[in-house]
């Protein structure tokens, strides 16, 4: 029973992270203002660093090092004990801290629903609409290439 609940919580955190990592800092900040954020401490001060990005040729070839990417990370702890971690591409430390804060809030029973409805859900809607808009714009200029069969003889 506990395992099921843990899995559910983990899935919710992953879903939240997938949205937050793609949202911009201002968007997260403005939506976080709608929540009475509880007292928290920085377990790990927001910091910048590098991660090695690895790739595989064709998606399944031998792995190689593609290059290094800048990331920011942070960890916060709520007064009620939940620990949230935030990792994001780029040098925006405040964004990493806000992601960590959201991650911690998603885990707490008290704030999970509020964060989901007031922060994650609007950001997810925005992200999906932007993606579909880009996809539609790209689709409008799509060119189909045909391979002409060369006539033999």
């Amino acid at each position: 029973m506990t395992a099921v609940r843990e899995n559910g919580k983990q899935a919710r955190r992953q879903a939240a992270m997938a949205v937050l990592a793609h949202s911009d800092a201002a968007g997260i900040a403005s939506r976080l203002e709608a929540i009475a954020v509880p007292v928290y401490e920085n377990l790990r001060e927001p910091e910048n660093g590098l991660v090695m990005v690895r790739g595989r040729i064709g998606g399944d070839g031998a792995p190689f090092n593609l290059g290094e990417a800048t990331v920011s990370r942070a960890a916060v702890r709520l007064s009620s004990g939940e620990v949230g971690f935030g990792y994001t591409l780029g040098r925006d430390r405040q964004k990493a801290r806000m992601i960590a804060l959201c991650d911690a809030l998603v885990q707490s029973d008290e704030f999970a629903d509020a964060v989901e409805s007031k922060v994650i859900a609007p950001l997810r809607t925005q992200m999906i609409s932007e993606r579909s808009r880009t996809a539609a714009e790209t689709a409008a200029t799509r060119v189909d290439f045909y391979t002409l069969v060369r006539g033999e003889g």
Partner: protein
Amino acid sequence: MTTVAELPAGFADKVLSAQSTFRSVMDAMARPGSVQRIEAAAGVPAAMMRGTAAIALTLFDHDTPLWLDPSMSGTSEVTKWFKFHTGAPVIADSSICSFALIGDARSLPGLDRFAFGSNEYPDRSTTLILQVESLTQGPGIELRGPGIDGVAVMQAAIQPADLFERLKINQTLFPRGIDVVLVADDTIVAIPRTTRLAAKGG
């Protein structure tokens, strides 16, 4: 079993705290026997003093293997704290560690169990970080050597009592040897390998 939810935090202000702690350690090394204060505020695991925690957050990273004495490694809290905040590997073999943390100096193992470095690379030696009772009160100790104008006197309550006898191997090993940082709460004194020690009046 310590979970991440119970871990003490790291430096409140990472860059400035690390810089000021580094400065304190550097001054202590440059002026052996002088008592330096560590002012940086950081979360501290139960087995550790404030100075030790600040030095750890400043100097340790994934390239510096650590060796912990039983009083430090007794609970998993210290190990986890190091792993989370510094990424430094905690190893069981004291002869290849860069830093050795001694929480209870009475149980200090023989110094020959630590790394002395080699003649080509004397820097590949172990730096001992020893937690002691007091660096301001206790028997007087005379120090001589580079960084000291004549003789410096420090007063310290240090276990083990024969620490200075043991550190005499630094004379014969030079340039190899062991550097020691003594920590008492938020004060530190460094005894680099070039410093010669004698009990006052002895």
